[in-house]
């Protein structure tokens, strides 16, 4: 099934950055990626400094699952967990744009861009929706669910 992230999902991902988790060896690794850009219907790009990338992939990059959720969440305002498979970019216009943006915004050089192709979206709101897989609802279904639950807020930078 083709996934298209909702506008609210995109706003939270780009507005606050994300915590990312990999586990190619069956042992989890977590980092914070302050800069995130949605570059396709379900593709999210994360530029990484070398220390971040080494923590995420201690034995070097392996094509494996990545899980990520929005950072700086005080009370689960963006109750989403995204899972996908990553590829890495070392060149190209997207790579160059994001490397530059990372350095300009954060003052730290990035060396690689992790591109996650989202294949699954889950709800992490406590209660009956916890663990509900959302992408199976389709784009319209996800938008309708957000609306029905009153999930209309986005980070202040997007208002």
């Amino acid at each position, binding site marked *: 099934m083709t996934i298209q992230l909702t506008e609210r999902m995109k706003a939270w991902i780009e507005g606050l950055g994300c915590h990312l988790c990999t586990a190619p060896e069956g042992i989890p690794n977590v980092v914070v990626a302050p800069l995130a850009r949605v570059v396709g219907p379900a593709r999210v790009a994360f530029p990484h*400094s070398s220390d971040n990338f080494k923590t995420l992939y201690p034995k070097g990059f392996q094509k494996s699952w990545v899980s990520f959720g929005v950072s700086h969440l005080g*009370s689960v305002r963006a109750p989403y967990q995204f899972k996908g498979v990553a590829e890495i970019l070392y060149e190209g216009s997207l790579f160059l744009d994001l490397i530059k943006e990372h350095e300009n915004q954060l003052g730290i050089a990035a060396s690689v861009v992790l591109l996650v192709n989202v294949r699954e979206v889950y709800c992490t709101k406590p*209660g009956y929706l916890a663990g509900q897989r959302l992408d199976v609802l389709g784009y319209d279904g996800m938008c309708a669910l957000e609306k029905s639950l009153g999930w209309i807020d986005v980070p202040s930078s997007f208002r």
Partner: protein
Amino acid sequence: MKFSPAMKRALTVPKDGGCVVYLATTSLDGKPNMVPMRYVASFAEDKVLLADMFLLKTKANLKENPNCIVAIAYPIDADRGRWWAFRGMAVVMEYDMDPGYDWYGSKAGEVLEKWGRWEEKEPPLEVPPDIVYGVAVQRGVVVLHVTDAYSLRLGETGREVLER
């Protein structure tokens, strides 16, 4: 290994000045799962406790693979920074377990006695009404035995931060 006083302050529920954390687990074949948790506490000198409420994949993962991470999610900038990830092995201590069950020095009986009815002990008063759940159903307590901790701060990610 032991937590610093600042870490102990961070590892409490948000209404008491603590943090929302991410609990990251993984299946044995390497598919990670990461969920936000509000009920968090430190215990002894090297344990992080989390309430087993609404856990599905997390619990399935822990039953086949105890390796996990608790990472501070919010507020990560409080004090002089709470850019920490705590790594170790966890078990879910569930009701009806042998009270003498021991996980790296922590007994199930003691943990469940103190944190088995966590919502009554530390109700989610700070959580907005549109977000808080209706009924809490706690099935146990996740006990993480921390073996190492590292920084999440950009530029020094991965650097060990736990006192030895």
